[in-house]
C-alpha cells in the first residue's frame, strides 16, 4: 500500500528560478533563503519518496480565464515546463505517474469533489521552483510527480474549509492506493505577499510566523477563515496559503518538524519552508 512519508511547504517565487539558474546560492541576498534547503534534501535522501504530489497554483501558463478550474489534477506521463513570458529558463520535463493520478481522481470524485482532469499539462514556476529546490539533480530515475493545481487567479477561490476537506480526502486517497510506494506531498507558495495595487509589497511577518506554527499543530485554526480575511492578513497572493492547508490536511495527525526556515524578503514575499515527517 502507498504511504505518505512526509510533507514539505515551500515558497515558489519565480525569482528563485533565476537565482538557481545564475548560481546565486552564496549571494548575500539569497544565502539565508537557500541555506534552508540542504537539511530538507538530506531528509529526502534518507526517506527516498517515490512520488511527489505537488499542490500548487498556476500563474497563467497552463490555465487562462477561458477554462479556470477550481481543482485540477494532472494525469499525464510527463509534464513540460514552458516560457512564462518573463524570462525564467525553461527546465526539463517532469515524470508523471498516471496510474496514481487516476486513482486520486477516482477517489476524490467518489468523495464528491468536482475535479478537472488534465491528461496534458504545462507546469509553471509554482511547480518547477519547489522541485528544483528539492531535487536539483534529476536523472533517469527521477521522482515521479502528480501536479495538483488550485485556482488562485480568479475569485471565487476555494475556501480554507474546502481546501482542508479536499486535503483530508487526498490523504485517504493516497493511503488507499494499492501499489507499494512512498509519497511526499508538497504545499507550495506563500507566505504573505501582494504584488498588485497600492498595498503592493505588503508582508505580514506576524501572520506568517503564526502560519509556520499552526500549520503543524493546528491547521484547523484556519477552517472558518474566509478568502477575504485571508487576503486581508496575507496579502492578495498570500492566499496561496490554502495550498499549504491542502498538503497539511492530507497528512493527518500532527507531524514531526524536521526543519524549518523563514526569511523576509525574497522578492516581495515572506518565504517559508517546513519539512514535516509523518509520525507513524
Amino acid at each position, binding site marked *: 500500500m502507498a504511504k505518505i512519508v512526509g510533507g514539505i511547504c515551500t515558497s515558489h517565487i519565480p525569482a528563485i528560478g533565476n537565482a538557481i539558474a545564475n548560481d546565486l546560492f552564496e549571494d548575500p541576498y539569497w544565502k539565508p533563503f537557500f541555506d534552508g534547503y540542504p537539511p530538507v534534501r538530506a531528509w529526502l535522501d534518507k526517506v527516498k519518496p517515490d512520488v511527489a504530489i505537488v499542490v500548487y497554483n498556476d500563474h497563467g501558463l497552463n490555465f487562462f480565464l477561458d477554462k479556470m478550474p477550481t481543482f485540477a489534477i494532472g494525469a499525464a506521463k510527463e509534464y513540460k515546463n514552458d*516560457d512564462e*513570458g518573463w524570462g525564467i529558463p525553461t527546465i526539463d520535463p517532469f515524470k508523471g505517474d498516471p496510474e496514481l493520478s487516476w486513482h486520486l481522481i477516482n477517489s476524490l470524485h467518489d468523495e464528491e469533489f468536482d475535479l478537472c482532469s488534465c491528461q496534458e499539462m504545462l507546469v509553471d514556476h509554482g511547480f518547477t521552483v519547489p522541485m528544483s529546490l528539492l531535487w536539483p539533480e534529476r536523472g533517469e530515475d527521477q521522482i515521479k510527480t502528480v501536479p495538483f493545481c488550485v485556482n488562485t487567479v480568479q475569485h471565487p477561490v476555494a475556501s480554507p474549509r474546502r481546501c482542508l476537506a479536499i486535503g483530508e480526502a487526498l490523504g485517504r486517497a493516497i493511503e488507499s492506493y494499492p501499489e507499494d510506494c512512498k509519497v511526499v506531498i508538497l504545499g507550495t507558495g506563500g507566505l504573505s505577499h501582494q504584488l*498588485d495595487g497600492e498595498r503592493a509589497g*505588503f508582508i505580514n511577518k506576524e501572520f506568517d510566523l503564526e502560519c509556520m506554527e499552526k500549520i503543524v499543530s493546528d491547521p484547523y485554526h484556519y477552517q472558518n477563515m474566509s478568502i477575504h480575511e485571508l487576503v486581508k492578513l496575507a496579502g492578495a*497572493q498570500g492566499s496561496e496559503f490554502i495550498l499549504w492547508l491542502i498538503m497539511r490536511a492530507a497528512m493527518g495527525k500532527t507531524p514531526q518538524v524536521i526543519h524549518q526556515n523563514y526569511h523576509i*524578503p525574497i522578492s516581495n514575499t515572506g518565504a517559508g519552508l517546513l519539512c514535516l515527517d509523518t509520525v507513524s
Partner: protein
Amino acid sequence: MTNTQAPIFGTTFFDGQMAIKGYGLNKMCYSFNKAENREEFLKDEEAYYDKFGLTDAQKEAVRKRVVLDMIAEGGNIYYLAKLAGLLGLSVQDVGAQMTGKTVEDFKQMLVDAGK
C-alpha cells in the same frame, strides 16, 4: 456577483465583475507567454491592442504603462506580470510605481518587513 465584503486598502478582488471588464486586456497579456507574440506587440502596440479588442481606457493605461490603471480596467496581476516582464519591469519596479515610491524605497520597505 460583486464582492460585498468590506474593501481592503489598495487591494482589488479579481472577481466576476473585474473579469468581465478585463477579459480582452488579460487575454492580450496571456498571449505574451509566446515569444513571437511579444515581438509582435513590440513591433506595433496599437495593432496588437486592437487584435484583442482593448477598450480605450485599457489602451491608454497600457500606452502610459500605468499599472494601477490597468488593474482598474480589469487587468489581473498574474497576466499583467507578463506585460511588465516584456517591458523589462521587475515586480519591485511595478510595486514602486503602484505605491508611489522609488524602487530603492520599495525594496527597503520589503527588507523592513522582516525586522
